[in-house]
């Protein structure tokens, strides 16, 4: 019989710190939205902050940081690969954007 010993996880204090950090990032996102940045720059900032939030949530709330590394390397690269493979249609969206007809 193979017993799986529970692995130590974060403390409630660390969870609370992560929670506060996530809320601060959301506040920063809203502040940036009203800074009237160009759409591309705003999108890059918001996506970057969302990725930081996702990483914090996956690593701490979902305990991936405290699991064996094999779990991380078996899951995350494949998800990233699938998401990267979806990027091939952006040139077409950009083509349509540049072909917009402008009124007189």
């Amino acid at each position, binding site marked *: *019989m*193979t017993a799986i010993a529970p692995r130590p996880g974060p403390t409630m204090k660390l*969870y609370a710190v992560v929670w506060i950090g996530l809320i601060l990032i959301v506040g920063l996102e809203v502040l940036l939205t009203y800074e009237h940045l160009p759409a591309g720059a705003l999108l890059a900032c918001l996506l970057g902050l969302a990725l930081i939030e*996702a990483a914090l949530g*996956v690593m701490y709330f979902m305990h991936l940081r405290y699991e064996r590394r094999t779990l991380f390397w078996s899951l995350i690269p494949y998800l990233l690969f699938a998401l990267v493979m979806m990027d091939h249609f952006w040139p077409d969206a950009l083509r349509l954007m540049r072909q917009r007809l402008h009124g007189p």
Partner: protein
Amino acid sequence: MSEAATTLRAPPGALTEGSPYGIPSRKLAMWLFIIADAATFGAILFAYGYLRLANPDWSKPFAFTPTIVNGMVMTVVLLTSSLTMVAGLAAAQSGRTAAGVRWLGVTMLLGLAFAALHLREWFAMIAEGWRLFRNPMGGSPLFGATFFGITGLHLLHVVCGVIVIGVIALGFRRGRFGAGHVEATALYWHFVDLVWMFVFPLVYLMNVR
């Protein structure tokens, strides 16, 4: 005997092999589901990005009040529900059944509050004339399709999560489910929270007036 050991119980004499990941099979199954669901949400958000970029008359209907304020409150409610969920899991893993059930109950209430806030916003938009394929601002009708489609799929996940947490909490209180079940449910709930971390900036903040 730990619950994880019980999960991997094999008949006497059978050859058994340890999990390469060191986690129970239900937790691994939940991780695999989450990865597949993340790819689904990724595909939907990519499709939204394509439509938003390719449509010249994309509407930007959201004002700071009430929509963005409402969205911020929803985000804080969902993030707080993740905190109460980890408190429930910690209580369940340390054998404090009553505290675990209580925290799961708080998580359910917060999930319901999120759903109620979301529906209130939906009804306000529907009252303004927004439909799946109708745009009262005169812009691309695909705005309604993507907005209601993406937020509706997320809302469906929230509602399913609340129901699952309720079932697990009841079973945990009666001794039918263990801390491992709570842990797998918590993984799902945190995932639903993380998806919102992308939906809020991309669907709401990128469409402010």
